[in-house]
């Protein structure tokens, strides 16, 4: 133990004889180690963000949506999910705990002279919970509203601001499709949910108005007519989307298959889609692992480069100190002593690089924020065009990356130090003494 301490002490002393050279070698390892931690942290940050987005859909949920088929396929009878589908699924699939159907359509909302175009969402009381909407004022739709098919509505925060800039929306009557609805609540503003691949569109909740789905069915009906210049389009659809909650996470995948089969029997058109967040989470996991592996390989390359730096410097040192090696051998140093001394020096270099690299790695959050703000100031246009995920990603230092990076740095020091050290030890003492 003390032998090692002395060896390390001696190594540090020898390395300090050439401070710049040692510092540059340490820098090589530092960059390698820091990049391992950084790249893993960035990978993890992106992964976690994707995971969060998917998890916000609920791992225990299955989402069934109406998809509009190409227009020539649509018969007069409409398309998409029907009230029958809903009843059928809830009645026949035992693993479904709850189901939350919604019907979404574009509408104009009015209050006195103010008006705006937004999303009318017919929903059930569970909708707020499923989409993680929070109540700000008043209340959300209740079962009583649903059963009574009442003309009650709840406004999204932004919708409330549009119609009631002075606030105090609750209790007022707004007009939707020629009928009055009493505002019973206002929700807290919610960030739009991102779309996930091609399987789920992004959803913007800011222009929403929520009404009981039964009221929507009764008052507005299934048919909407879209008129554009030179075009008149009829659209019949009963349910836009059903969010189904499965009783156990382990049943999700099976249930999804059952739902696909059940719906396929009653639908001749390809007018529905089934999204399973759990599948997406697993996909995202695989993607993330591949991403981390890829970044890890890049980082490994920089570590190898750092290691080659160590080897280079150690080989130069051995040549430079051949005479010293001869003296030490004459004074009784065994080959092992010489090997140990040079190995200790390369290891000290790499450990120093490793520790400083870890410090830099841990600073990656504030540093990346700094870099991002600098980039935003200097290249605002380029930054704007980057995808959201990249622009807002927060690196998350992966716990295991620190011991990993440190271990790798020690191994790099040993691996790239072994050859120079063995070369030093294999020098003939007499030859080495004569050197210089």
């Amino acid at each position: 133990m003390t032998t090692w301490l002395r060896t390390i002490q001696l190594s540090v002393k020898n390395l300090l004889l050439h401070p710049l050279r040692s510092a540059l070698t340490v820098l090589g390892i530092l960059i390698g180690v820091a990049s391992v931690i950084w790249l893993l942290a960035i990978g993890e940050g992106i992964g976690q963000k994707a995971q969060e987005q998917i998890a916000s859909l609920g791992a225990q949920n299955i989402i069934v949506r109406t998809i509009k088929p190409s227009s020539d396929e649509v018969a007069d009878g409409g398309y998409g999910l029907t009230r029958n589908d809903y009843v059928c699924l809830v009645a026949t699939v035992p693993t479904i705990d709850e189901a939350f159907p919604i019907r979404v359509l574009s509408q104009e909302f009015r209050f006195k002279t103010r008006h705006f175009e937004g999303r009318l969402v017919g929903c059930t009381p569970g909708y707020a919970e499923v989409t993680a909407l929070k109540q700000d004022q008043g209340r959300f739709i209740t079962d009583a509203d649903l059963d009574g098919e009442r003309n009650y509505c709840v406004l999204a925060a932004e919708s409330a601001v549009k119609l009631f800039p002075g606030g105090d929306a609750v209790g007022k009557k707004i007009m939707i499709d020629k009928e009055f609805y009493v505002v019973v609540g206002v929700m807290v503003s919610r960030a739009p949910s991102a779309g996930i691949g091609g399987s789920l569109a992004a959803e913007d909740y800011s222009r929403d108005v929520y009404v009981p789905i039964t009221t929507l069915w009764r008052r507005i009906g299934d048919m909407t007519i879209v008129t554009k210049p030179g075009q008149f389009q009829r659209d019949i659809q009963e349910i836009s989307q059903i969010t189904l909650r499965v009783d156990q996470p382990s049943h999700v995948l099976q249930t999804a298959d059952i739902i696909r089969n059940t719906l396929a029997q009653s639908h001749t058109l390809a007018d529905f889609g089934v999204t399973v967040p759990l599948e997406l989470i697993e996909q995202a996991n695989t993607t993330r692992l591949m991403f981390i592996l890829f970044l890890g390989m890049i980082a490994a390359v920089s570590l190898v480069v750092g290691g080659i730096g160590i080897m280079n410097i150690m080989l130069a040192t051995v040549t430079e100190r051949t005479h010293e090696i001869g003296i030490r051998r004459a004074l009784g140093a065994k080959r092992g002593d010489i090997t140990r001394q040079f190995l200790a020096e390369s290891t000290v270099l790499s450990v120093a690089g490793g520790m400083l690299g870890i410090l830099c790695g841990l600073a990656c959050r504030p540093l990346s924020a700094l870099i991002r703000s600098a980039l935003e100031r200097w290249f605002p246009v380029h930054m704007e065009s980057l995808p959201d995920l990249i622009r807002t990603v927060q690196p998350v230092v992966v716990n295991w990356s620190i011991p990993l990076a440190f271990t790798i740095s020690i191994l790099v020091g040993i691996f790239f130090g072994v050859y120079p050290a063995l070369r030093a030890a294999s020098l003939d003492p007499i030859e080495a003494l004569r050197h210089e």
Partner: protein
Amino acid sequence: MADPLTMLGQADFSARVQDMHKDYVLGGETVRALRGVTFDVPTGDYISIMGSSGSGKSTLLNLLGCLDRPTSGRFLLGGDDVSRFSDDELAEIRAKRIGFVFQSYNLLPALSVLENIEVPLYYSGRRTPRARRQCLELAEKVGLGDRLDHRPAQLSGGQQQRVAIARSLVNDPRFILADEPTGNLDSTTTCEILELLGGLSSEGRTIILVTHEHDVAEQTQRTIVLRDGKILSDERRR
């Protein structure tokens, strides 16, 4: 163990060289540096080895110093046949039983006087507080007690050689080998160094010293002259 010579060696001789040969291969040609050298070194002897360059004296000193193994023949040191020892075993002999003094001092430039004296302790495994106190005493003994923190470059040649002598004594070896220890020194300093070596001899240490100078050789008890890898003469002075 059964070898009677070995038993005898332990009893009577500090070292014994028996028909030692050493060949080198240099550029495809074999150079016969030593061609059968035999002599005994009784404990406490003070020997100078002389000879023109190429006579084999450096080769002999390397073999006596256990830096190399003879091609044939035997070298018995305190009863051990060192010529059969492995590399590590030789290193251990060098660390524990032999002290080296070189012509060019061979101090480590990055270390202070005291640290230079301490170097052999690393390899003999005796780096105890007591051994380190002895290093201080040795520095005093060679007259450098007030320069412990100096680097070799800050010292004169004579001072450097005194550091080297102190270093050679650290592990208290019975056997001291000096390769032209005064070769780089002026006459006054040469006298000082020879005095120091003479003192070590009178302490009962065996000293073998290679030199070119007759003045230096005259300070020793016995002179062996080599020529062409063989002993030309072996004379005892007093």
